[in-house]
């Protein structure tokens, strides 16, 4: 609660078109005691301007600062006065002066402030003051963290992550299901090259990695072990692990999920001859033969002279894809028919599909190249033939492809499989099709090697077994075909479970060298999460934010909306249905605050009362015909708000009847703000949020989508009040749609104006 607020106007950014003196007088008159300092500076964003403000703070005249000038997105470095001083930026340049379109169509002349423009500026300044008045300095909710990282999986990714974590002084418990470390890497004869010059396969070196891990006294290795459950929150998890059948509880601060992959069910390979012909093997089986020291045919134990590595599967999987799609549709329909109150006990469903073969294309391609070279190594005079549709060796591995081509005993051919037949004596006749020319050729080979697809372990099992209200698995596995992946291109480690970072092939199909990097990255994120939780700070995307949702549980009605809707599963429930917050899981989006019908959830510096009170500062003219309509825009501060800033700076203008209020995320919009505004006579409300759906852009995953769902409810409420539902609308705006968003606003304003005044006006 700021009791003394300094209000400062930056003359230089207001283009001479605002009557700043009049605005100052307005502030002094309306907020005389609250705002003891009201000043104008010719260029506030300057050392001199800053010093002026600092002096007022030092003199004890003010305890919070309201800057009226440029957008909060710029000049942030001038307006920091330490943690104890709240700063509110009133965006008078971009979202008032620059965007102002006078209804007359005339350009505003310096020194002649239209009344409408003054009113707009005045509303914004008052909103800024109220926002400060209703804000507190967030204290942060720091936790004493356990400086131990749980690494699940002892393969290449897990070993690398463990090593990285330990190297900077944290403890590690590494849990491995098998009785040996090394995972898939340990079963490989060789790996494709891991470093420059990328020209020859070589032993993986996993033994060295294992020795480094087992010899590190910061790393505890648990073999024959599996995670039974993980309870708690980042900083303080309690992982229950079954160690050879005995359960042990391991306190840990964060988790690296590195459980890798399993070979795809070979049933998928049936249409390619697997299971029917003895000498049709998978690349996984072929690798095992090489590792064991002899490549021989199952049928007769002979060394195959002619080995074909097939990558071009053509349309052989299409019938299976169709079947899978059908099954999925049926499952969805069945789920939809289920009782609504049959709350899901699990958020997990199996996601292994034949498509994993396509997703594994890079790995199966480089593996075929590598194994083609084994043929000459193991079989004197042997030849290998690699048949491919697209040689999927993107990037630097092209160099390995080139080197592999130089082997005279390796033949590369473009083509896809048409048929596989028994050639007698264990031989196989492969009918290949050239997709370009449509011609067919028949090749008789001694052995046919089919690609092994990598299915992420998370496609088959929840693995994490989280004791979270929202279920045991990583959410959205369906969206990522079972991979524990991120939806964000820019932020590959960000998932919906704070403190848990996936590494390696469980996240995406990747080579050992990419896994090496990936695991180092995941290790960093795991440590970063601890180093944030212990300071009470949020992690991505509001990194460093000390504010967190607080709950006034006395008034909670146990409706469970907050616990259901939190995109990050931060809230658990007690037996009565009360939310049990876990601050270190929380990303501070405010979705819970938006969901709460009783308005018992608040942030110190962002809450229902604060934004509601700010909205009330908008002066709505009693007579629309005289003062014009008024409309509220609630804009996502990450995307829509910057888009509006950029639109204004690009010379775009929009209706002067709207008032823009930035929100943390549309998910944080509490419908009371809209209901109150509408009952006060506001003619319309527009919500500008991120794109949702499969390729969502919302930084808090579900915010804009949830808001859209809530809009259906508010429509009902408005209908009951006799207010047209189209007065409240949500639109999706991407950050680069600055040239479109002014038009969207104007269309909305036109539509509302046509509806006429809000029937509640004047009440």
């Amino acid at each position, binding site marked *: 609660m700021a009791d003394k607020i300094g209000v400062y106007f930056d003359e230089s*950014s207001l283009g001479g078109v605002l009557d700043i003196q009049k605005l100052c007088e307005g502030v002094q008159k309306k907020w005389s005691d609250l705002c003891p300092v009201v000043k104008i500076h010719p260029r506030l*964003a*300057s050392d001199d301007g800053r010093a002026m403000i600092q002096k007022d703070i030092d003199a004890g005249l003010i305890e919070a600062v309201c800057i009226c000038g*440029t957008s909060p997105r*710029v*000049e*942030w*470095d001038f307006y920091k006065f330490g943690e104890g001083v709240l700063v509110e930026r009133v965006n008078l*340049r971009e979202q008032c002066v*620059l965007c102002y379109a006078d209804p007359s169509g005339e350009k505003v002349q310096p020194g002649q402030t239209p009344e409408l423009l003054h009113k707009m500026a005045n509303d914004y300044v008052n909103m800024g003051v109220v926002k400060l008045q209703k804000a507190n300095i967030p204290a942060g909710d720091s936790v004493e963290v356990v400086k131990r990282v749980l690494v699940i999986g002892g393969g290449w990714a897990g070993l690398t992550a463990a090593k990285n974590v330990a190297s*900077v002084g944290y403890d590690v418990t590494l849990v491995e299901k098998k009785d040996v470390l090394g995972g898939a890497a340990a079963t490989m004869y060789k790996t494709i090259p891991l470093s*420059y*010059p990328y020209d020859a396969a070589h032993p993986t070196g996993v033994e060295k990695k294992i020795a480094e891990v087992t010899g590190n006294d910061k790393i505890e290795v648990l073999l024959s072990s599996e995670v039974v459950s993980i309870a708690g929150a980042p900083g303080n998890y309690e992982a229950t692990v079954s160690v050879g059948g005995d359960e042990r509880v391991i306190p840990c601060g964060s988790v690296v999920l590195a459980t890798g992959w399993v070979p795809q069910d070979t049933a998928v390979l049936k249409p390619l001859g697997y299971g029917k012909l003895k000498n049709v093997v998978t690349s996984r089986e072929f690798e095992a033969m090489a590792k064991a020291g002899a490549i021989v045919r199952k049928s007769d134990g002979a060394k195959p002279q002619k080995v074909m590595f097939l990558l071009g599967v053509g349309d052989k999987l299409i019938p299976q894809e169709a079947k899978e799609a059908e099954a999925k549709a049926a499952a969805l329909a069945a789920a939809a028919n289920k009782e609504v109150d049959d709350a899901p006990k699990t958020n997990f469903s199996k996601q292994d599909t034949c498509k994993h073969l*396509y*997703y594994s*294309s890079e790995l199966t391609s480089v593996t075929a190249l590598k194994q083609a070279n084994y043929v000459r190594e193991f079989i004197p005079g042997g030849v290998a033939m690699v048949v491919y549709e*697209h040689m*999927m*060796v*993107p*990037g*630097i591995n*092209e160099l390995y492809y080139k080197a592999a081509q130089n082997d005279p005993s390796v033949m590369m051919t*473009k083509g896809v499989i048409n048929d596989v037949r028994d050639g007698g004596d264990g031989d196989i006749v492969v009918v290949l099709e*050239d997709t*370009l*020319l449509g011609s067919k050729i028949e090749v008789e080979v001694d052995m046919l090697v089919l690609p092994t697809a990598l299915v992420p372990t998370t496609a088959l099992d929840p693995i994490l077994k989280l004791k979270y209200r929202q279920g045991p698995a990583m959410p959205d596995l369906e969206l990522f075909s079972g*991979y524990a992946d991120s939806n964000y*291109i*820019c932020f*590959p*480690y960000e998932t919906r479970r704070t403190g848990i970072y996936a590494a390696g092939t469980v996240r*995406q*199909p990747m080579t050992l060298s*990419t896994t090496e*990097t*990936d*695991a*180092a*990255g995941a290790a*960093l*994120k795991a440590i*970063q999460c601890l180093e944030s939780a212990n300071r009470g700070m949020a*992690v991505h*995307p509001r*990194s460093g934010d000390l504010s967190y949702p607080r709950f006034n549980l006395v008034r909670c009605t146990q409706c469970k909306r907050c616990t259901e809707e939190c995109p990050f599963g931060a809230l658990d429930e007690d037996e009565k249905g009360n939310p049990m917050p876990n601050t270190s899981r929380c990303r501070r989006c405010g979705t819970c605050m938006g969901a709460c019908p009783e308005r018992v959830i608040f942030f110190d510096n962002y809450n229902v009362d604060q934004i509601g009170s700010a909205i009330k500062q908008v002066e709505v003219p009693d007579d629309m015909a005289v003062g014009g309509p008024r409309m509220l825009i609630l804009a996502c501060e*990450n*995307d829509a708000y*910057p888009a509006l800033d*950029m639109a204004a*700076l690009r*010379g775009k203008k929009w209706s002067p009847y709207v008032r823009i209020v930035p929100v943390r995320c549309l998910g944080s919009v509490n419908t009371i703000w809209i209901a109150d505004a509408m009952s006060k006579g506001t003619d319309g409300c527009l919500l500008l949020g991120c*794109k949702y759906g499969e*390729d969502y*852009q919302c*930084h808090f995953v579900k915010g804009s989508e949830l808001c859209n769902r809530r809009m259906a409810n508010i429509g009902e409420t408005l209908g009951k009040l006799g207010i047209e539902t189209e007065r409240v609308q949500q639109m999706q705006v*991407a*950050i680069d*749609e600055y*040239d479109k968003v002014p038009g969207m606003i104007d269309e909305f304003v036109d539509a509302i104006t046509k509806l006429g005044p809000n029937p509640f006006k004047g009440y």
Partner: protein
Amino acid sequence: MASNSILVIGGGFAGLTAALEAAEIGHEVFIIEKTPFLGGRVMQLNKYFPKLCPPSCGLEIQYQRIKNNPKVKFFTLAEVTKVEGGVGNYDVTVRIKPRYAGPSSPDLSDLCSSLDSEVVNDFEFGLATRKPVYMDAPFAFPQRYVVDKAGMSDADKAKVQKCDYFDLNEEEKTVTLNVGSIVIATGWKPYDVTKLTNLGAGQVKNCISNMQMERLASPYGPTNGKIVRPSDGREPKKIAFVQCAGSRDENHLHYCSYICCAASLKQAQYVREQYPDAEVTIFYIDLRTPGRYDNFSKKVLADEKTFAVKGKVAAVEQDKAGDDVWVTVEDAVSGSKSVERFDLVVLATGMQPSLAGASLPLDVPVDSEGFIIGGEEKGIFAAGCAKQPLDVMKSAQSATGAAMKAIQTVRGR
């Protein structure tokens, strides 16, 4: 004295990521960016594949992270000129060129447009000119003008000098930073099309590079996002994409540039969204869409007017009578050639490391292409496309991994 700080050379997506991830663990980081703005190559992209989402969306978050974290310090128009010392304790000399503009963010668009000088716009790959006082993009960070003094007429200089925001007499500065480890995130540059003689060497009017296509499709590009032919501003009806323009080529780049196949598929979508009647053909050797990009590839190619044709383009030539472009395609299998006419041709030019033909004042090994292949024992780590060709997602992954290594170096001693 041993230092806990980390230097990041390059303020593109990899550099920003490495710096922020390290800073959010508590390390002081310094970002050294050569150009006037952070953001690097991705600033020039219209959308990312496969989500078709705008790069400025992620950049906005990165910039918020910078603004909120006092541990991150950045220098623009800056270059490392000298590195002394060794792992754990480097003294780095940084030269900072004058910006000639003040530290705040005024809106001087009227002044800028009143200037009469026009300079070739490198940010737009020559598709447009710009004023000598400028910002590259609406989301340019820092949101501060920069003055291109060399591109200014005397009259413009006089005009600009009158505005007290500018100081045309500002001088170059030098700072010295003490750091424990160094992340090199110098990124990439598009391969020089003038070297691709059989593909028109940049002389065919309506043959553009994929990066130029990004600028044409960008809402803040030279056409405000409308894809038109450079020669006459006409809407193209028939567009060809030529894959591996410079990549996977003994005479040019030996490696595959990783992004071009998915980038062309993405750009095919740009075209098809704008022009429902247009026809797009992608000529490729292999369509490289690894991992779940397979879904993206299938989605784009499901469109009835987007075709992927296997074949190596042997020649791109301008029509003798007009502005159309002839593309000669060689069938790799049969050896036969076909010739087809297009309105617009896009060369999927590869990525070349920025360090190709350039060097840093650091003792770090590079391969013959310019990619960094070592330096770790010295506490120097490459991130992103300075190490190998990658997409944005993998650059961020690489940068996070490099940040981990850098932290190990400064903490492990």
